[in-house]
């Protein structure tokens, strides 16, 4: 019997053969935190040790409340800047870099075969690069800072074969929402998901990141793509450390294998108030909206901004509707800027914001009032997520959001892509 990617990554890390379901103690290659590094540093102080064990394995990226909306967040940021200086943590990225998952990836930490843990549920994103990455809690990150290690279970693997040919106007986000709608928000709880099949293979790295990011909404511990030429091309000039290419054997043991044929897929929408409350767009066409959000760690990369600009070029955001645009990182922001994408979007009436999490988690920069409806490219639509608990959030692809802000109601982007 062959081995899965997961078995190989864990076996390499702990120096012995592991089996699915086994609990091991391991030292992750990198541990990521964001603005929550402030409370984590206070937990770290309780351990009674002066120094973090491996400063070079710690990555801290400020993104959740940037720039600081109030004195409280400003003080958190200040505390973190002082902490990284005192601890000699050089992998620190201040508020002008972007969202943690995008920045960690483009700075070359997300590499094949690495084990990366982070105090953010969407840490699964680095699976797009053939890494094994999972979200953990704040106390766990503090404990890793102090000891360098953590216990983990080697998860069973679900193989998702995405096959067929994706129709025009249908994107990685629609595929992610479709899968979540089919298997449910707990469809892969505790499991690692291996995304494979011709559609997955044809996805750009940016599109793969959408699926790996949203694996968190399937309940998965990790959601990965086996590294291929695209992966290696992406990481070759930016890799921060040596890596190995590990893949699953053809006769590896999977707990479950599920096929998704996406040839007839239409744009998908997650309706309030859960991500697995998914329907094809035709069931919600015409739903009035007050705000559109294009961006976030799910859909704030160049290809996302590009498709939005293509749809909005020469058109206007409907009067009475706001459209906020957040690039996932400064690097993506500059790429979009140079291509004239922001000029197009600004002329159409969009508000160009700074790279960061924005209102996705309801902290600042465009939260919703009671009774308001938003359509967003983010990854969560729980009650109260973007501000008021009496607001309604629909999740969709950047193309669907762009088309919807033109008409002021949920709109199929197809006709704007002809």
């Amino acid at each position, binding site marked *: 019997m062959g081995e899965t990617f997961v078995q190989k990554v864990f076996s390499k890390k702990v120096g012995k053969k592991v089996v699915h379901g086994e609990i091991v103690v391991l030292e992750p290659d990198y541990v990521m935190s964001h603005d929550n590094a402030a409370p984590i540093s206070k937990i770290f102080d309780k351990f009674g040790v002066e120094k973090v064990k491996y400063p070079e394995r710690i990555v801290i990226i400020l993104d959740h409340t940037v720039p600081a909306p109030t004195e409280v967040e400003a003080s958190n940021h200040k505390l973190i800047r002082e902490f990284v200086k005192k601890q000699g943590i050089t992998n620190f990225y201040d508020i002008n870099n972007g969202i943690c998952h995008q920045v960690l990836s483009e700075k070359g930490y997300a590499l094949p075969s690495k084990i990366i843990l982070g105090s953010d549920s969407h840490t699964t994103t680095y699976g797009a690069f053939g890494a094994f990455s999972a979200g953990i809690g704040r106390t766990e990150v503090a404990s890793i800072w102090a*000891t360098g290690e953590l216990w983990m279970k080697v998860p069973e693997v679900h193989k998702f074969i995405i096959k067929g040919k994706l129709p025009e106007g249908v994107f990685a986000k629609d595929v992610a929402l479709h899968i979540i709608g089919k298997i449910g928000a707990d469809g892969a709880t505790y499991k690692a998901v291996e995304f494979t099949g011709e559609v997955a293979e044809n996805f750009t790295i940016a599109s793969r990141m959408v699926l790996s990011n949203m694996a968190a909404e399937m309940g998965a511990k990790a959601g990965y793509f086996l590294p291929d030429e695209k992966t290696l091309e992406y990481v070759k000039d930016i890799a921060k450390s040596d890596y190995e290419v590990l893949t699953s054997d053809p006769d590896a043991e999977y707990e479950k294998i599920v096929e998704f044929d996406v040839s007839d897929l239409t744009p998908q929408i997650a309706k309030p108030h859960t991500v697995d409350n998914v329907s094809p767009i035709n069931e919600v066409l015409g739903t009035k909206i007050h705000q559109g959000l294009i961006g976030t760690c799910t859909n704030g990369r160049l290809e996302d901004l590009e498709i939005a600009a293509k749809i909005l070029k020469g058109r206007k955001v409907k009067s009475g509707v706001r459209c906020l645009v957040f690039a996932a990182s400064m690097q993506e922001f500059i790429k979009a800027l140079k291509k004239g994408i922001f000029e197009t979007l600004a002329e159409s009436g969009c508000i160009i914001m700074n790279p960061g999490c924005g209102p996705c988690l309801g902290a600042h920069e465009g939260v919703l009032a009671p009774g308001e409806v938003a359509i967003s490219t983010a990854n969560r639509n729980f009650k109260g997520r973007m501000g008021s608990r009496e607001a309604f959030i629909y999740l969709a692809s950047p193309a669907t959001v762009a088309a919807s802000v033109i008409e002021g109601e949920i709109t199929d982007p197809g006709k704007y892509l002809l």
Partner: protein
Amino acid sequence: MPGTIKGRVWKYGDGVNTDVIYPGKYTYKNLTNEEMASHALEDLDPDFAKNVKKGDIIVAGKNFGMGSSREQAVTSLKYTGISAIIAKSFSRIYFRNAINQGIPAIESSDAVDAIENGETIEIDFKNGVIITAKGNFKFPPFPDKMLEILEAGGLVNYTRQKLGKK
């Protein structure tokens, strides 16, 4: 972790997510333990935080704690004084966070179906049994690693012990 606990039940349904347990707008506000407790479950059941008593037990359906990794979704409940959470299933990060805070997170679908909101139940950790008005339900023992953390009173104490700090 005590051998046995007894408490009144607050029962909820499936998919209780981290945003309704502890809204994102508070996550970077550096609130005190008492303030955090006062917001626990506020977007699902605003009466909970006002009326919860020390030792009460939360009982819920599938995928309790789905969503964010925010630890306050556990600690805000912990600071209300609740003694355990029983659910049909937990989201993975929430389960880890609960154990790491010394809050027993127990999975038992049968017990959840049997338990009524407001009844007083007993959890016998030594024998792995939930004692309810409609009968007793066994639950599997925690793996050694989790038991060590629970017995230390959570991951902070556990890590301190490992580092040789008492």
